[in-house]
């Protein structure tokens, strides 16, 4: 009887342990809700961002390898072209191992992944990709301030990163600066996928003929931006708008997010 009880306890606790690991992640940081004015958005007004959890680090090669091993359909050899282009995981030697550079990049952000692959990875963890607004909101933070928009030094440093070529081997995910929320490498490591990367109207959107004409001209994209000074954000929005969901890029990775409500519900 006691033994049965013990087994029962064991079974239950294993499950709960697994649950606890999934829903109370030490690997995520809480981003307090607030408002901000997106570079491109509905007019030039502040939009609300609800509090959410964000991975402290971008997903690494080693983590993505574990995912691919468990989910063969995301292996290089198996993935459908509509979900990831031919360059998918090009920096790995095979679909099932990182290969010769493993020691150097195990702990570096995974790159050459498509939106579908990134999305599937996050869903597997019970998470999702952050929205553009969530990502941009969290990226406003410097080491000390939640919103460092008007911090010249911070802006200059960001600009410098974006103007540097990619190193041959990306540094580890811990190497970039830790921001106000405890999130690392929002700026300074890789570009990152977002859930609604395709929400910015940088293409000619013919909802009004007037703006359509405007958008026929070079530079029209910037003309509807709220803060033309923020070149760093402009680059990100422009980059996103050039993506397709099966594209993979040599400096584009991702991290996952989680809504606070979902998290509570799962507890």
């Amino acid at each position, binding site marked *: 009887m006691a033994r049965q009880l013990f087994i*029962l306890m064991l079974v239950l606790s294993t499950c709960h342990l697994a649950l606890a690991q999934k829903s109370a992640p030490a690997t995520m940081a809480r981003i307090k809700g607030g408002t901000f004015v997106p570079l491109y958005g509905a007019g030039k007004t502040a939009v609300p961002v609800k509090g959410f959890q964000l991975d402290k680090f971008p997903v690494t090669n080693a983590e993505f390898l574990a995912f691919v091993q468990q989910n063969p359909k995301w292996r290089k050899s198996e993935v459908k072209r*509509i979900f990831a282009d031919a360059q998918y995981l090009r920096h790995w030697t095979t679909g099932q191992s990182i290969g010769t550079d493993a020691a150097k990049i195990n702990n570096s952000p995974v790159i050459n992944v498509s939106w579908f692959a990134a999305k599937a990875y996050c869903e597997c963890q019970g998470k999702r990709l952050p929205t553009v607004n969530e990502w941009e909101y969290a990226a406003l933070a410097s080491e000390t301030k939640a919103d460092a928009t008007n911090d010249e030094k911070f802006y200059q440093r960001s600009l410098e990163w974006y103007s540097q070529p990619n190193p041959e081997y990306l540094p580890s995910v811990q190497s970039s600066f830790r921001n106000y929320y405890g999130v690392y490498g929002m700026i300074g490591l890789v570009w990152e996928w977002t859930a609604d990367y395709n929400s910015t109207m940088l293409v000619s959107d013919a909802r009004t003929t007037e703006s359509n004409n405007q958008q026929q001209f070079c530079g029209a994209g910037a003309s509807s931006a709220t803060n033309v000074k923020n070149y760093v954000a402009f680059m990100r929005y422009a980059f996103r708008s050039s993506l397709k969901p099966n594209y993979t890029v040599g400096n584009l990775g991702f991290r996952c997010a989680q809504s606070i409500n979902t998290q509570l519900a799962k507890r």
Partner: protein
Amino acid sequence: MKRFTYFLFLALTLSFTACEQAGHSCCVKPTAAAAGKTTATTVANTTGALTDLSLYNLASDWTNQDKQPIKLEKLRGKVQLVAMIYTSCGYACPRTIADLQVLEHALRKYKPEELGITLVTLDPTRDTPARLKAFAAAHHLDARRWTLLTSQPDNIQELAALLNVKYTNDFEGNISHSNVITVLNTAGEIIYQQEGLGTNPAETVKAVEQLQQAM
């Protein structure tokens, strides 16, 4: 003792259910690489395996204007014109419908079995199947030709991404979106995209005719 065993089973079942829920049906979504394979066996007689670039690799669940659940793969086998709209849209969407009707008229020599037109809502909250049906009736859309679809926001987002439709909600019920009419071949691959409103349909007509001739 018996009671306890029963209790043990119950507890086990419960705990496994909990585990499963926590497991998030890992990676069933978004792809359907696996589903593609299953389908290949189930409908092999008519169509065979889905090609790598087929949109129908999306395994998501959709609902049509008659409230019937359908998979995108159901659209397979005929050339499709696809557009994303929302029915409360005042300006662009009626023009998209008009553009599609221009195409429908130009391509009227093809039967509904050869050429389908599919409208997908960007606004699943308001565009219920009933509302889609009323919209179809109001625009005199022939149900043999036109399919109107809705689904979960996430599934709509995936399809929009694949169709290269950019869209965003503006918090006032408007959805800005790019106006694209996509031509899919019988396998569900993107062959041609007509962008903008009131665009000259000649290229799209040509794309459809070439596909029909190739059949």
